[in-house]
């Protein structure tokens, strides 16, 4: 017999396979015979624990944790979720490395050195809480409730914030999420529609998506990104207004690289075109809006030709956008934005976005400004809370301010003692050194305090200024927030859900939750009788109770309760009611006019760019949430520093090459402490540079994050406050480059 070669064999097999279908049978057989192979790093023997709610950012995706031998091995989306589903983002995955960060705050600490140059002594909880109670009480007795200020951020800070606000009675509370982020947006929509907005516009069903300066795709909010991508998948046209070729711009049908800070002029020009050409939704405006004539006049100040010059955008493109919106109205998603505190002229810009939505009738329709309806839950209120004392409220200077007091007012009072001294500060989960513009002032404020308490999970730049530093559990180790929301449906009832954050692992080290810490401080300040709940579980159960739920019930439902909505979020017909003073959508607001502001959206040019300088723009990257995640080993490895974007033509003229290392110096002569790498790109306007935010942390306790990349906030010294809301405009700063010790101006 001739020898059978490999070639012969395969040829014969191929012939046989053509007549006998072998592959399916083999597949079934192979499945049965699969070896019991467990690779290293597998999830064998893990126990799935539902009920997690993410806090690597504040979108709060619902989680499941896989735990083995007490070790959290992996985080995943909760398959039951109708929000993020099984998906979580890179940051969500890396939550494990927050819990297991070696630099985490582990024990209560007392600073026996100076603020900013601390020397830490581990002390007992008893001693730490005694000290907090005593020192806060001393300030309260001497200076009154207004002698205390608080800077909270995140779900764990809610309970202590309510204590300081309603029991201690201080108005000096400033949340970064409002005064340095989205508060101005909420207030602009509140003034226009009588309710605030969130960014859950119905992009999935939109025919046009309209974004101004958006971080979509750069700040991954999972369900939000899914809705946006669904819209694009379904053929929505995408318009992106941004001086930078952002992630969103890269998917756009129309990208408008606008001159920074001039967006309101562009929006007025679009609306002017819609009005003068009769392209707006007349029936909707007639039925639901007030002040159309005054509004029309305000828009007429910005014909397309004029706006084109101001915004550095071709006139034809402005008209093209207006017509594209009109052709697809009302199914157009005019996105309200999220981070909105840009140039100190922001309230009017967002009012313009809100009015554009109304002009197009894009309110509560598929593809429009339709926020899903959330289920109702309860709240926990401190007992016998006092009425706030109006006499000590500095916020009234900004009549449209978001809840709390503008940060700038608090900081000034702390420094100058006027209108009253502020002598104790409680900082809970907020890194005010890197969230509030003008670091030098923030540090001066901190140094002038009699007492500074910081509560956090990780060391940050502000925790260096604490007298007492207390460690909290991570979001994987505690109860606090109730995440709820809804899902729109175009062909059936909407759905809604409730998920309470539940611990996936036991708190490590010697950390305590915010209910415990606050109650113990309250007792030591003499406020024991006001305490509403004794522990975290009671707190959450009280909030769940009106929804007919409890932690026990939620656990039995794998962490998420889902039900059909009784109401549809989309409107039925044209007749609507609004909780504004006029009961209508206020294109022109009498209240604004009475308080001395433009009643209809008006454009104020941003601070002028000095010659030789570029606008300092900053933004997000998908792998970090501000400074909060900088020390996370996995995320750090994904993006160890924040490259500075510089326009290619400018770079060529300035002799700067891709990969060069530079520092920045700003309009007030402040130089960045660290340098970073240059990214030369045509994807940014000639008169601007861009830096991802959150890098360049200075706390030497942060082994991974310290001095990595550049801190944009250290270059934000312009005092630019929005006149209606008191929120901080943070993009009104300008920079030049410093390379090898030499300052290089922009040739413009």
């Amino acid at each position, binding site marked *: 017999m001739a020898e059978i070669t490999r070639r012969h064999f395969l040829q014969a097999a191929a012939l046989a396979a053509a007549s006998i279908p072998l592959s399916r049978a083999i597949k079934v057989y192979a499945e049965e015979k699969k070896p019991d192979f467990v690779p290293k*790093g597998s999830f064998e023997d893990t126990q799935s624990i539902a009920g997690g709610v993410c806090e690597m950012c504040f979108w709060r995706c619902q989680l499941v944790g896989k735990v083995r031998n*007490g070790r959290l091995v992996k985080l995943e989306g909760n398959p039951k979720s109708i929000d993020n589903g099984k998906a979580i983002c890179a940051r969500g995955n890396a939550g494990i490395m927050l819990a297991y960060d*070696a630099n985490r705050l*582990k*024990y209560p600490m007392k600073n026996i050195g100076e603020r900013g140059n601390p020397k*830490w002594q581990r002390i007992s909880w008893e001693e730490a809480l005694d000290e907090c109670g005593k020192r806060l009480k001393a300030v309260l007795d001497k200076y009154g409730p207004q002698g205390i200020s608080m800077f909270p951020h995140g779900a764990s800070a809610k309970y202590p914030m309510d204590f300081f606000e309603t029991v201690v009675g201080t108005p000096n509370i400033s949340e970064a999420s409002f005064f340095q982020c989205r508060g101005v947006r909420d207030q602009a929509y509140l003034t226009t529609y009588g309710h605030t907005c969130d960014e859950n516009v119905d992009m999935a069903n939109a025919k046009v998506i309209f974004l101004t300066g958006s971080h979509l795709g750069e700040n991954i909010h999972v369900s939000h990104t899914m809705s946006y991508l669904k819209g694009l998948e379904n053929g929505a046209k995408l318009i992106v207004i941004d001086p930078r070729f952002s992630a969103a711009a890269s998917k756009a049908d129309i990208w408008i690289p606008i001159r920074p800070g001039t967006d309101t002029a562009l929006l007025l020009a679009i609306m002017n075109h819609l009005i003068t050409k009769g392209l707006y939704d007349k029936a909707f405006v007639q039925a639901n809006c007030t002040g159309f004539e005054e509004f029309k006049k305000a828009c007429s100040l910005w014909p397309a030709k004029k706006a084109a010059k101001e915004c550095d955008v071709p006139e034809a493109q402005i008209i093209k956008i207006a017509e594209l919106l009109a052709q697809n109205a009302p199914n157009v998603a005019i996105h309200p934005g999220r981070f909105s505190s840009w140039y100190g002229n922001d309230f009017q810009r967002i009012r313009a976005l809100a009015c554009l939505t109304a002009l197009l009738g894009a309110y509560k329709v598929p593809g429009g400004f339709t926020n899903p309806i959330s289920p109702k839950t309860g709240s926990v209120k401190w007992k016998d809370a006092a009425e706030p004392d109006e006499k000590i409220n500095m916020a009234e200077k900004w009549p449209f301010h978001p809840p709390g007091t503008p940060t700038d007012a608090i900081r000034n009072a702390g420094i100058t003692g006027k209108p009253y001294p502020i002598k104790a500060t409680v900082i809970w989960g907020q890194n005010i050194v890197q969230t509030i513009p003008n670091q030098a002032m923030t540090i001066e404020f901190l140094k002038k305090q009699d007492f500074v308490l910081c509560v956090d999970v990780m060391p940050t730049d502000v925790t260096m200024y604490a007298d007492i530093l207390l460690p909290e559990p991570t979001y994987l180790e505690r109860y606090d927030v109730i995440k709820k929301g809804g899902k729109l449906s175009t062909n059936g009832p909407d759905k809604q859900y409730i998920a309470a954050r539940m611990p996936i692992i*036991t708190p*490590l080290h010697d950390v305590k939750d915010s209910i415990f810490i606050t109650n113990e401080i309250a007792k030591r300040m003499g406020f024991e009788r006001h305490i509403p709940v004794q522990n975290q579980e009671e707190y959450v159960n009280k909030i769940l109770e009106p929804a007919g739920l409890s932690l026990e019930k939620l656990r039995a439902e794998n962490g998420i309760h889902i039900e059909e909505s009784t109401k549809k979020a989309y409107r039925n017909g044209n007749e609507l009611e609004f909780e504004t003073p006029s009961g209508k959508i206020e294109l022109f607001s009498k209240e604004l006019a009475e308080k001395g502001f433009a009643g209809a959206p008006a454009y104020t040019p941003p601070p002028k760019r000095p010659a030789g300088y570029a606008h300092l723009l900053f933004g997000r990257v998908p792998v970090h949430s501000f400074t909060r995640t900088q020390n996370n*080993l996995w995320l750090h490895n994904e993006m160890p520093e924040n490259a500075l974007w510089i326009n290619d033509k400018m770079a060529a003229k300035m002799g700067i090459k891709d990969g060069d290392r530079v520092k920045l110096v700003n309009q007030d002569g402040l130089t960045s402490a660290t340098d970073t790498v240059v990214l030369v790109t045509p994807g940014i306007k000639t008169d601007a540079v861009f830096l991802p935010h959150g890098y360049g942390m200075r706390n030497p306790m942060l082994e991974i994050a310290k001095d990595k990349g550049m801190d944009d906030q250290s270059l934000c010294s312009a005092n630019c406050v929005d006149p209606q809301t008191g929120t901080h405009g943070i993009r009104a700063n300008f920079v030049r480059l410093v390379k090898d010790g030499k300052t290089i101006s922009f040739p413009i």
Partner: protein
Amino acid sequence: MGIIYWNVKAIHAIIFLWSYLTFAQFLKSGTMQQHNANTFGASIIYNWLSYLVDYPNKNFLYSNEVHFLISLLESLRLTQNAHGIQAFASTPDALLRLQLEYTRLFIQDGKRPAAAPPYASFYLEHRLWGESTEEIMRLYKTHGFNLPPNEIPDALCWELAFLAHVAEQGDMQTEGLMLQHMRTWFPIFQEYVETHAEHIFYPTLVKLIQILIQKEDS
């Protein structure tokens, strides 16, 4: 670690006085097998060291454990260390200084990351609760050694406590496994402590631990 636990160990201090001479001999010879018969003594020594590497509290410097340390150092002819610690212990703010030293070296330093976090996985995987930690946890579980869930299993004080646990049972094999594991990370830790310590207490302590965990033939 639990207060009750250490009260029990304080009673053991009486036994220390009985055992320390034997132990000193054993350290000098640097071998363990010669002293198999004295497994109970080894267990106490592990526990004693575990106590010393935990955060120093109120009466720490006047405790039998520290007295024993000084006597032991003397008998080992480490007189400089013995005198250093004795002189230090008698200064009025000694406890505060020791607490600050402990905080700075092992927990958090205002001027840099903690010099020597006392967790094995920090040196093996540059994180806490890594794969190596899980291996240690498995080992603990199979030997019925349960620790509070907030504790990090491969923290130095727990690894020493586990050594005490298995030594008490005369389980030389597991003791050997644990020692082998400790030798993978302890030298780097020791170097960090020696480099960054501001006085003699902790370098002395890690030196003793290093002697105790070194390979028998070295």
